[in-house]
């Protein structure tokens, strides 16, 4: 077995800061820092406590009108997550309706071609075609438990919108999905899919008309409807408890994958790779490995939306995290071939993992992503989502450069299937012919 690839210098941004241990459940953040010496070290990806802090990131930066709803949601989630009956019902739906556990595929032909052993965690095989289902089933059950009758959601590529519309249909709830006008055009089929599922899709025409603006609009709508409506946020972002709650709902990816790779390899993979926009599939798979293994963790952002590598700390959408912004703090527009990664921020826990050096943050450009998309189709017969193809693109590049040594074992989270992207990829490739 090759040694783990070199752990390069931790990826940081901004000035170096003093690291802050994650806060344990219900701790007072500052007091805890002073008494850590006699305490067992807290988990790297643990409970962020009542303030929702991951180091200095996270928090709850929302208008007062939404604070009571966030507090209520946190309490409801803590209660549900500790309730075996809730966990059993969630597991049962994910198994019998969602198709879990998803397999890990050992990619023979791709391995031969790249010289590193590639394993895929097949979230593309989840019902609705991406990992997003794990989160919406959890939040849908929680909304029902809280007596909410309506779900609202933002969506970029449409995967989270489709998943939310699916959960709403399953639980007999109303559903409204906010989607940037640009994205409704590039993901037309997903708009129709949501409508077939009984949801209303509202095109958002403010700002850059992409995911960032869809989040703004969903938050605005939530303020006006918070009494009977649950905001089903799609990623590990937003105000506390969302970053933590969504990571916990996605943790099933990492927990399954760790057991599956141990059974397959007899050990842990050297590297675990996932794409990251808001960062939910990456958080989900990392959660299974960050504390339990010494596997290297790599998140791959779109190069036009690389919040960790090119952003600086800031506050947007209820959270303090790494954001792409100008000197004054105006948020800049991200740009990517993939609507799901077209976001100028990233979940706060990722900013924290980057600062700790526990995960590395890389980026992939549109061209390399298109190549990786086609490569997986031809070598393995799998069409990945353009989002997931970012993770593959980094593996291809790192294998070619020698950064991943021959024989390294790499687990890639294949977060979604690429059917939704086929028309867009066709147009791009034909445009070149």
């Amino acid at each position, binding site marked *: 077995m090759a040694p783990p690839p070199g752990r390069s210098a931790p990826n940081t941004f901004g000035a170096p800061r003093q690291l802050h241990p994650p806060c344990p459940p219900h701790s007072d953040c500052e007091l805890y820092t002073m008494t850590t010496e006699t305490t067992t070290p807290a988990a790297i990806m643990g409970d962020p406590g009542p303030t929702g802090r991951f180091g200095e990131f996270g928090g709850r*930066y929302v208008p*007062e*009108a939404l604070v*009571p709803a966030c507090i209520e949601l946190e309490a409801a989630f803590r209660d549900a997550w500790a309730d075996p009956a809730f966990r059993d019902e969630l597991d049962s739906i994910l198994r019998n309706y969602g198709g879990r556990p998803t397999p890990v595929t050992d990619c023979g032909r791709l391995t031969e071609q790249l010289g590193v052993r590639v394993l895929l965690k097949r979230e593309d095989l989840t019902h609705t075609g991406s990992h997003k289902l794990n989160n919406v089933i959890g939040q849908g059950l929680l909304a029902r438990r809280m007596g909410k009758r309506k779900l609202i959601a933002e969506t970029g590529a449409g995967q989270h919108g489709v998943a939310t519309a699916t959960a709403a249909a399953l639980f007999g709830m109303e559903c409204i999905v906010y989607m940037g006008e640009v994205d409704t055009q590039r993901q037309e089929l997903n708009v129709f899919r949501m409508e077939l599922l009984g949801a209303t899709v509202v095109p958002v025409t403010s700002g850059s008309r992409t995911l960032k603006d869809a989040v703004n609009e969903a938050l*605005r709508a939530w303020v006006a409807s918070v009494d009977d409506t649950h905001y089903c946020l799609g990623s590990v972002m937003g105000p506390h408890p969302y970053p933590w709650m969504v990571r916990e709902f996605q943790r099933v990816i990492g927990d399954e994958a760790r057991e599956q790779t141990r059974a397959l390899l007899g050990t842990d993979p050297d590297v675990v790779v996932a794409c990251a926009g808001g960062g939910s599939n990456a958080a989900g798979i990392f959660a299974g490995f960050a504390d339990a293994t010494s596997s290297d963790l790599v998140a791959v952002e779109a190069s036009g939306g690389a919040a960790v590598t090119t952003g600086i700390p800031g*506050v947007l*959408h209820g959270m303090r995290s790494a*954001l792409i912004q100008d000197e*004054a703090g105006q948020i800049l527009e991200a740009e990517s071939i993939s609507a799901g990664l077209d976001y100028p921020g990233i979940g706060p826990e990722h900013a924290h993992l980057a600062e700790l050096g526990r995960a590395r943050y890389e980026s992939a450009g549109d061209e390399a992503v298109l190549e990786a998309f086609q490569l997986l189709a031809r070598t393995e017969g799998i069409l990945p989502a353009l989002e997931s193809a970012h993770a593959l693109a980094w593996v291809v590049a790192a294998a070619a450069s020698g950064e991943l040594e021959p024989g390294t074992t790499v687990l890639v989270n294949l977060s979604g299937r690429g059917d939704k992207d086929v028309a867009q990829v066709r147009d791009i490739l034909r445009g070149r012919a």
Partner: protein
Amino acid sequence: MSASPTIRTPGTLESALLTRRDAGHKLLIPYITAGLDDEWLLVLEALAGAGADAIEVGVPFSDPMIDGAVIQESSLRALERGTTPEGVLADLSRVDVGVPLVVMTYYNLIYRAGHARIAGAMHQSGVRGAIIPDLPLEEVGGWAAVADLEDVATVLLVAPSTPDERIGAICERSRGFVYAVGRMGVTGEQAVLADSAREVAGRIQAHTDLPVCVGIGVSTPDQAATVCEVADGVVVGSALVRRLLEGRGPDGAAEFVGSLRAAMDAG
């Protein structure tokens, strides 16, 4: 119930508003977006002349999450004209309109500038208050402590959804006045005043002696007068900014604010 047990000296904004209120006046606080056009400083002067007791100056942010269509549009226009927080404060330092100025903006602009630096710059520019709607009670401490030192009153908001047990704590930390959010929604004109506007003002008054001003969803002279049957004053934004977007200029702004003043004084 009455004010906080802690003895503290009221800042400039709070003193000015308390003096007006205790003399029997209702408080009128119009809002405009800074940098909207090249007349915006003239509009400030016109508002003061038309009877404003303080003026809320919006520093535009790219992602105005609690604002509806009108303020989104004015923010976008101002940003397209190259408006920056630094530029707005520099402009404000060149005028003296005779009433306290209160900045309204989103926290990222404060955070990026640095608390001490921007609080100092606000003070230098004559700004005596700040409303930061995405910085709720639990997150406001670091900023508010610094702002206090610069006589910049951190005005906190109470919403219709705020439970009574939170209202006391919010009033305790608020300076200048308490901003009562009149309805569950984003900023924008409403044909009918929400019942929640007067209800939330009354609930806040049970916890504090600070002035209580209702904003969000107060759009007409009649609505302002009705709210002031309970509240100490009103903040009026979208209805004024819409007139400015329509090109009615300082005169149109003065006429509208004058009509609010007249209705509140008659009420």
